[in-house]
């Protein structure tokens, strides 16, 4: 690319030294085979899970190592994150799309549910005593609410490079960019969840990372209100490997058919599982009655 259309130097005629040429060049890039990035329209994606029938696909994107994305998802949408090659760690933030100063609270998430380790059926709780998302499927079973994410300083210490413009992007800055696209700022980068890497606490309080490579696992999250999610795909903060090691994450989100969503909610596998979860859903119902969605 650089050889064909590189910087114009004095006396050199390039294809982009006129407005028409620059426009033709830019337009010629469309249709480039997709290594990463969003498929638009998402309905053109061909890898929806076979068990999902009649759904409207609203997001299809592959996030490469060091990448990030952010999306608005409506209540009822299900997003699947797949750890395609097995060595990803996805930092996740969730905000209420209507009132973004309501957001995920990792401390309340583990304390209210009396459980430090997330799995199927676990709720991602907001700081307002409500459910933002429910884990409705999980073949990974390796997630972490305790360790948060890397920052510019920690990546500089570990890799000697840390910024979004380099080759070792830190998670905090990626999440900040993600939420910035919705008008939010660095103060909105709350303590996050990590997907696809787990941390266990030993009896003396010591933290131990399970970073084994396990390709092909996924986790499915259902939005319980309209949400903004921001994700970054960067190494877990306890990942001691000298190399910045990360693999791609596939993101697919769909809105189930009304019949499927109704049937799922009628079965109600998660709502009444514990008294704390039931009250979180009741608080969410009450909030949605107020007109937000």
């Amino acid at each position, binding site marked *: 690319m650089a050889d064909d259309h590189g910087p114009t130097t004095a006396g050199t005629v390039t294809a982009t030294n006129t407005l028409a040429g620059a426009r033709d060049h830019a337009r010629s890039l469309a249709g480039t085979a997709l290594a990463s990035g969003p498929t638009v329209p998402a309905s053109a994606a061909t890898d929806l899970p076979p068990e999902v029938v009649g759904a409207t696909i609203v997001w299809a994107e592959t996030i490469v190592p060091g990448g990030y994305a952010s999306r608005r998802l409506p209540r009822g949408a299900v997003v699947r994150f797949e750890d395609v090659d097995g060595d990803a760690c996805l930092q996740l933030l969730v905000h209420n799309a209507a009132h973004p100063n309501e957001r995920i609270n990792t401390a309340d998430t583990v304390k209210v549910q009396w459980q430090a380790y997330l799995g199927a059926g676990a709720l991602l709780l907001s700081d307002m005593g409500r459910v933002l998302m429910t884990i409705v499927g999980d073949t990974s079973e390796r997630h972490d609410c*305790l360790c948060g*994410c890397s920052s510019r300083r920690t990546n500089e210490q570990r890799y000697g490079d840390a910024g979004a413009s380099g080759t070792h992007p830190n998670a905090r800055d990626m999440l900040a960019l993600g939420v910035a696209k919705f008008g939010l700022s660095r103060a909105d980068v709350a303590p996050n969840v990590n997907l696809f890497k787990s941390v266990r606490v030993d009896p003396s309080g010591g933290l131990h990372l399970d970073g084994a490579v396990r390709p092909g696992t996924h986790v499915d999250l259902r939005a319980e209100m309209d949400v903004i999610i921001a994700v970054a795909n960067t190494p877990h903060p306890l990942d001691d490997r000298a190399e910045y090691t990360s693999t791609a994450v596939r993101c697919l989100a769909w809105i189930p058919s009304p019949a499927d969503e109704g049937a799922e909610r009628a079965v109600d596998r998660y709502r009444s599982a514990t008294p704390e979860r039931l009250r979180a859903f009741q608080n969410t119902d009450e909030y949605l009655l107020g007109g937000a969605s």
Partner: protein
Amino acid sequence: MSAMSGAAILDQVIPARAPWSAVVGRGQTLRIIDLGGNQAVDCLLYNANDPVERYSAHDTVVAQRNIFLVAGTQLMSNEGAPMMTITSTTCAYHDTIGGACSRESNTLRYGHHTGHQHACVDNFLDEGMRRGLSKRDLVSNINWFMNVPVGDDGTLGIVDGISAPGLSVDVRAEMDVLVLISNCPQINNPCNGFNPTPVRVVIEAAG
């Protein structure tokens, strides 16, 4: 309790259930004294010159690879920098994974009849708003004198405390830090022995 070497530049009692805040300058030491025993003291830290840099429970436990705050623990910011250091503590350890109680989370944990009880998040907001902070600035906090173990299966919760009357913790500021405290008003779990009591705070000049 070790003797403080510098002059006390502030010495106050925070009433039971009340909020408090102060700027602790770089090099100064904040001592918190559990007067009645087993009184949780919820605490947040902000870089006094750039409050978007604030305490990070996650960065703190990652830096020391342990969930318990003990003598020597560096309290880290969300930008990975040390904000304060625990220079001594006569309570064996302190919590930073249990978060703060709120009216809203109380309804989940104890039922909707607790939805009007005073709570730490309201203390943080009430005091923090006077310092220009808002709800967006609240993050996972420190719980001095609180005991939150994690079981083998991941079960986690607030259990009876390990503090006692007169136990204390000293933290030295590594930058100019705004310290925001809620003297926890919770009465539905054992974090305050079901009886919130006052605590004493002393700021000692840099040595």
